[in-house]
């Protein structure tokens, strides 16, 4: 039916909520004020590792205006985002595992009083020695040193080992073998909006929870479990999220606590965390130590790769099970690898739990891979771009670990970014102190599997058409600033040939909207877009039937355009969209339809193969040009060019925005951001002032190049843009530093002191622990299920 181009897709339209945000009218969680609201505060542990012997709230409860105090005893049910590792408690039951771990919650008439009441809660701790390093965590055998007891041994949450193809042969055939160690420091999301939630257990015995969350559906499940309420009596509303980046994707203590406090007090209970507390909630980037060994032919062809990762997980599992697999899953996606071995381990330490931050588990290995490739190219006397261009993975291919690649624009990304940055003119030709570096990467457009196993759709959309011509789209997706509400409006407007501004979007409300799994893993555009198109398709069928009858035109000659349903051959023969809807409502009754989306199956079927598959991979390349002062070690980034294969730019403004934001965030990680702790386990810098992040002054000009590959699995061909573009920037900075001053920095953040030490030959290589990984699960390509390809 579609003969012309798009009328909405690909256009630089404003977001549907843009003016509300510019007018200060968007209602974020902390802007909500319900009548009779009381305020909550959490009492947090001052110790990194301790047994909680006794919590006595009596003195606090005696204060006038304090309505309730709850402790671990009130919420003993464990929870956690991953079904297999439910090791969190809303309030510590018998143990605290990091400085900041919540122990009790107070509800009082004012925030000030709630805060004061915390001082009247008596807690008796038995202090234990904190475990703070990966090495200590692997070695802690004594019972008192074990942070959890559910895991099999020491402080190992999960150890995995996977082997694909012929490793021995791969190394035997190699002319050169490269080995290196790397360290990617942990850092945090630092969204500008602090966490905030409001719980209200109403007179109808139903609970409503408003929260700044990226995953209302998973939160809904956790609330039901911990509070012991039927999920059908709980409503979760995700308020517009003031920045997430993965940090608001777990169910949290503060959310469960306000719900419980409201069940006790029967009043709305609100909590807004301080900035300091957001550093304790964390769930940010895992610090990861890595070891990597790669075999190559003389001409640079990769023969095999063996990769090990050691993740410092902090006090709880969070997404850790997925995180550890993600450090190994995507190495095979950008370049052809005939064999590959991955070993990874995630440990518990007495620090705030790590989790998913933009790129979830993949920026760390990408850092190692892209630096080592740069070193290989250097050794073989090749241009690093040529080395990569020799061995890019292809469209419609399957990787050695069983991942299906549908489309790839990596070649074009490399060529375009090199051309714009004038790579050939600059690489190894700039004067000392001035350098340029390149890296490439691959990422997923949504996880192929849901977090809890089920056969249901990952995304559902419901559309209501009414006789006014109004279109309302209902979807559980959560707008965290990436523009997911706008994506729904654009998709539906394109399908019905109307203006996106005429569409109402209702999202992120578990009572009103069909389930969408949440804003994580860069899944939203692909999954909600496809679900929306399916729902539109059902309605269009009805509309075309009546329009065909009225206009006496065959339905396949009709199109939706300019607010009309009209003949394509004789455009003057048409009716308005409103009239068409009215006629359809007369014929079929009330008009509504649903659409669903579930990702396609992947060939891989080994244990652990749930992490890595996706509807479509995206590819990105970055070139960083910088100045590095050989005297002071200071780095000034001059410019970053970034090319991203986004499938199709749904809205180029939004895709560029995601790309620029990713580049910025990567630069913060590469140069300055770090989540660091004292020997006691105390966070060293839990404030915006001390936790350095780039301002306008440190952020260079960013030139974005969008490459379109029109993926058959994507809605209108679109793939993700929110996370992939972060990945290549960090190693490209390190590679540029080498080009500028001739030293390799294998750890981030790349600070002036590290550069100076490296220049003096005093920067030690990263040490990795000696650890016996479990015997590998071996899998050969071709062993998996056969999957049909879409065209």
């Amino acid at each position, binding site marked *: 039916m579609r003969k012309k181009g798009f009328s909405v897709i690909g256009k630089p339209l404003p977001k549907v909520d843009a003016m509300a945000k510019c007018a200060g009218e968007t209602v974020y969680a902390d802007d909500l004020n319900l009548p009779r609201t009381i305020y909550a505060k959490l009492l947090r542990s001052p110790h990194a590792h301790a047994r909680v012997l006794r919590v006595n709230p009596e003195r606090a409860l005696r204060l006038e205006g304090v309505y309730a105090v709850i402790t671990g005893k009130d919420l003993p049910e464990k929870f956690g985002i991953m079904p297999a590792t439910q090791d969190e408690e809303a309030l510590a039951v018998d143990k605290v595992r990091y400085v900041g771990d919540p122990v009790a919650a107070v509800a009082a008439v004012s925030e000030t009083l709630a805060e004061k009441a915390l001082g009247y809660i008596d807690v008796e701790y038995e202090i234990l020695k904190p475990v703070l390093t990966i090495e200590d965590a692997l070695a802690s055998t004594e019972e008192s040193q074990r942070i959890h007891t559910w895991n099999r041994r020491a402080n190992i949450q999960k150890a995995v080992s996977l082997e694909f193809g012929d490793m021995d042969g791969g190394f035997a055939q190699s002319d050169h073998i490269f080995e290196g160690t790397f360290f990617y420091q942990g850092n945090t999301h630092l969204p500008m909006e602090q966490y905030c939630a409001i719980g209200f257990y109403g007179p109808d015995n139903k609970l409503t929870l408003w929260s700044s969350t990226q995953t209302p559906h998973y939160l809904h499940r956790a609330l039901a479990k911990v509070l012991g309420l039927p999920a059908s009596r709980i409503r979760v509303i995700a308020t517009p999220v003031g920045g997430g980046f993965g940090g608001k994707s777990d169910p949290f203590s503060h959310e469960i606590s306000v719900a419980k406090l409201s069940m006790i007090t029967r009043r709305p209970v609100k909590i807004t965390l301080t900035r300091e507390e957001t550093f304790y909630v964390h769930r940010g980037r895992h610090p990861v130590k890595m070891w990597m060994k790669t075999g190559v032919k003389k001409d640079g062809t990769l023969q095999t790769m063996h990769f090990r990762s050691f993740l410092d997980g902090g006090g709880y599992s969070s997404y850790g099970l997925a995180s550890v697999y993600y450090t190994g899953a995507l190495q095979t996606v950008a370049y052809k690898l005939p064999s590959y071995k991955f070993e990874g381990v995630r440990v518990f330490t007495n620090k705030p739990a790590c989790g998913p931050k933009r790129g979830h588990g993949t920026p760390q290995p990408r850092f190692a891979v892209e630096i080592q490739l740069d070193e290989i190219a250097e050794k073989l006397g090749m241009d690093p771009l040529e080395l990569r261009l020799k061995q890019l993975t292809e469209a419609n291919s399957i990787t050695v670990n069983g991942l299906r690649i549908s489309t790839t624009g990596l070649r074009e990304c490399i060529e375009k970014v090199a051309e714009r940055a004038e790579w050939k003119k600059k690489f190894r030709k700039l004067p000392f102190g001035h350098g340029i570096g390149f890296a490439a990467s691959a990422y997923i457009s949504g996880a192929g599997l849901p977090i809890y196993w089920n056969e249901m759709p990952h995304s559902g959309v419901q559309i209501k058409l009414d006789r006014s011509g109004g279109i309302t789209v209902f979807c559980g997706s959560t707008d*965290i600033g990436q523009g997911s509400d706008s994506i729904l409006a654009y998709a539906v407007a394109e399908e019905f040939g109307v203006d996106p501004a005429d569409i109402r979007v209702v999202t992120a409300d578990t009572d009103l909207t069909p389930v969408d799994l949440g804003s994580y893993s860069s899944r939203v555009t692909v999954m909600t877009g496809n679900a929306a198109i399916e729902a539109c398709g059902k309605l269009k069928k009805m509309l075309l039937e009546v329009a065909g009858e009225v206009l006496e035109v065959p339905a396949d000659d009709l199109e939706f355009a300019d607010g009309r349903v009209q003949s394509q051959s004789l455009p003057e023969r048409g009716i308005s969209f409103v009239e068409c809807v009215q006629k359809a409502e007369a014929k079929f009754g009330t008009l509504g339809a649903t659409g669903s989306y579930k990702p396609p199956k992947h060939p891989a079927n080994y244990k652990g193969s749930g992490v890595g598959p996706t509807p479509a991979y995206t590819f990105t390349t970055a070139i960083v040009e910088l100045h590095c002062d050989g005297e002071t070690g200071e780095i000034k980034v001059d410019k970053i060019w970034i090319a991203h294969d986004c499938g199709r730019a749904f809205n180029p403004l939004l895709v560029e925005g995601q790309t620029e934001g990713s580049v910025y965030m990567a630069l913060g990680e590469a140069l300055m951001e770090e989540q660091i702790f004292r020997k006691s386990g105390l966070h060293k810098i839990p404030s915006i002032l001390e936790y350095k992040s780039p301002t306008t*002054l440190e*952020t260079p000009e960013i030139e974005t190049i969008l490459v379109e590959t029109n993926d058959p699995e994507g809605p209108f061909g679109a793939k993700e843009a929110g996370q992939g573009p972060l990945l290549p920037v960090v190693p490209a900075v390190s590679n540029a530093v080498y080009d500028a001053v001739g030293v390799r920095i294998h750890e981030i953040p790349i600070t002036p002191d590290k550069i100076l030490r490296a220049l003096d030959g005093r920067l030690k290589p990263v040490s990795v622990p000696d650890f016996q990984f479990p015997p590998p699960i071996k899998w050969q390509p071709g062993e998996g299920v056969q999957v049909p390809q879409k065209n």
Partner: protein
Amino acid sequence: MAVSERSQKRKKRRNSVLFEQGAGKILLRLKVNGETREVATEGSKTLLEVLREDMGLTGTKHGCELGECGTCAVLLDGESVLSCLMLGVEAGDGEIVTVEGMMQDGKPHPLQKTFAALGATQCGYCIPGVLLTAKALLDKNPHPSRDEIRQALSGNLCRCTGYTKILDAVELAVKGAEAP
């Protein structure tokens, strides 16, 4: 920044003294967005708290309440100030403009238009502070260079945009002002 943190601590101390001595509520008269309004409030409240909690002007956001992020910026007599760092009573004589006051006669300010049009708002949480800081700049210097814009906005953290589209939007508003 270190200085402002110290003064913040001093203020907090003074506030708590006021509060504990039972200073109770005071009647505060503020001129906000051209309207003179009176609220009964605690003298210890920051301007941010008075605006958000007592006046219902929740367009002004907060990211730290310690003077470190720029999210709470409002205009006081045309200057961009951090509303988390001053008391409501300290703003008594001035003219305050918050993001809600940027629209004039129901029409968006040119900056609001260009920010919306260029996709300069992602989560939008930093945007009220950014818009007001940019407005203060343009009111004083209608034709700033990109570097001057960068400088003026260097105290406003944004974690979403990489600042690129924010700078573009301010530049576009500058150009728009030149258009006939």
